């Protein structure tokens, strides 16, 4: 891929937008205003082209083949792994490709669940897993299921009224019995950015493993897993310009190599006999079956694209938009932000509630104005319950969002308020 990017001395959002074919679409005769990025992002032609030219010229299955296409495909797949590793400040062998972030959490939970007594990963009655009340279902349900299977106990850090983690009881909730502390880097529903250092420090004190859900951070800011000091980190490609169907589990190599496998099948084995098998080292151990070959190529192209634009610039751009949105909402009246209502320690997803209008009606009415926002529980049911709402409306920007689009949303909210005022 040669990402022909303009000079972005001043962040040139129009140049970025020109790379995204779908952004020229109209909805109900209006220009599409895509503010559902926390759910999934659109794809630039650089990513689509990288995947397509790979498939049209070099496609084959990967690993172990000796013919030319097989070597080329393996090279492309493995150099995609290197690109992602570099993107995360990690080593090549520490990057496991999964189909999404959800599989990554299930992988770790199942692997731990398969560990025999005596293994450092083993869990049983008396052991604890700690999460937070703001987890996405993907980083909650696998741990519930693991606890059910093993008899371990699930605990969770509660939330404050202003949408932050309540760390008052951190030392009780994360304790000597805690085997793993799994938490979200940036909440997809509240937008909250969590204090990774504080949580990692406590986990280290008690010898618990840490897993960080980076589904909402990796697309929006530069991430260095080594600097973060966690043991596991996951991201999902479709939220960061890459194709659907690919995600990443990053784990420290010595942990991955020591963990039992999750899924069994081709590529993850060493020697297979009918009576039993031995397993390959990581990352292969966790990549059973034919992998997401062209999707890995697409993900690498997405990482390249994001790096070329610059994660720091993207973060700064989104920060300005988030401030504009939060300030705008406050100015409107009759609309309440659910989650932090300042831009300190937060991401670009902003959930809100319009007085007396059901989120479904908000979302549908905004759609008729061309504005795509998400309504619902955002796979974070417990958060809705915590803040006493059945659902929220969420607007989330990304590198191609413009200040003008935020204005369209704010005007749209006014239209909705007028229309539904009874």
């Amino acid at each position, binding site marked *: 891929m040669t990402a022909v990017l303009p000079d972005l001395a001043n962040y040139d959002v129009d140049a970025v937008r020109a790379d995204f074919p779908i952004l020229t679409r109209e909805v*109900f005769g209006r220009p599409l205003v895509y503010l559902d990025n926390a759910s999934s992002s659109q794809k630039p032609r650089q990513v689509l082209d990288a995947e397509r030219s790979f498939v049209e010229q070099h496609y084959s299955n990967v690993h172990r083949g000796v013919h030319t296409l097989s070597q080329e495909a393996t090279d492309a797949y493995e150099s995609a792994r290197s690109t992602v590793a570099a993107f995360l400040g990690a080593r090549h062998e520490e990057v496991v490709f999964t189909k999404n972030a959800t599989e990554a959490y299930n992988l770790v939970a199942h692997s731990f669940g398969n560990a025999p007594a005596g293994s450092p990963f083993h869990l049983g009655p008396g052991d604890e897993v700690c999460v937070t009340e703001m987890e996405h279902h993907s980083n909650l349900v696998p741990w519930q299921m693991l606890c059910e299977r093993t008899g371990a106990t699930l605990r969770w850090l509660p939330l404050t009224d202003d949408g932050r983690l309540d760390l008052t009881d951190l030392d009780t909730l994360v304790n000597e019995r805690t085997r793993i502390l799994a938490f979200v880097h940036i909440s997809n529903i509240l937008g909250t950015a969590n204090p990774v250092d504080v949580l990692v420090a406590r986990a280290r004190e008690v010898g618990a493993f840490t897993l960080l859900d980076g589904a909402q951070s990796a697309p929006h800011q530069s991430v260095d897993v080594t600097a973060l000091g966690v043991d596991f980190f996951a991201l999902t490609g479709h939220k960061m310009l890459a194709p659907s169907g690919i995600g990443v589990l990053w784990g420290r190599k010595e942990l991955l190599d020591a963990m039992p496998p999750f899924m069994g099948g081709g590529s993850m084995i060493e020697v297979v006999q009918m009576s039993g098998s031995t397993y390959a080292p990581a990352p292969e151990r966790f990549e059973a079956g034919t992998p997401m070959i062209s999707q890995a190529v697409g993900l690498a192209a997405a990482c390249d694209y994001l790096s070329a634009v610059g994660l720091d610039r993207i973060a700064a751009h989104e920060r300005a938009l988030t401030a504009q949105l939060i300030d705008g909402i406050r100015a409107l009246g009759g609309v309440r932000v659910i989650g932090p209502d300042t831009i300190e320690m937060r991401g670009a997803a902003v959930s809100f509630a319009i007085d007396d209008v059901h*989120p479904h009606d908000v979302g549908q*009415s905004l759609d008729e104005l061309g504005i795509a926002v998400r309504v*619902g529980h955002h796979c974070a049911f417990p958060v809705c319950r915590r803040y006493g709402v059945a659902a929220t409306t969420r607007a989330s920007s990304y590198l191609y969002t413009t200040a003008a689009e935020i204005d369209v949303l704010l005007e749209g909210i006014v239209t909705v308020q007028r229309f539904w005022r009874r």
Partner: protein
Amino acid sequence: MSNESLYQEIILDHYRNPHHSGLRDPYDVEVHHVNPTCGDEVTLRVQVAGGVVQDVSYDGQGCSISQASTSVMTDLVIGRGVEQAMQTSEAFLALMQSRGQLEPDEDVLEDGIAFAGVSRYPARVKCALLGWMAWKDATAQAVAASAGGAS
């Protein structure tokens, strides 16, 4: 909102002025249904006698679609024979599952035809069906109970 809007005037009218709303006595059966995907809920009562739906009353939380659909439903079933009302409910269900492919029959569905557009929005179909499903459940229970009592 636009012409293609989901929000036909009929729907908005029922939403703003729901028919037969509020919980009333007497009733045979009361049910509580929840739409897990959005947390909407309805509590609904039916009274059936002589094979006829005598009354349906309800109270609930929800979006305009679910509220209006429940209101329309009460118009279509109260005072009708259970069998006919069940048929109407099937017709509404079929319309909702049609993904915009079915031409609704106004003679059968009356104001319910305003929901034809909803079928193009699978995410909203459950909203439109919440009250109907609660009614069907409650009525089936009422019929079963009276059949049990009669035998």
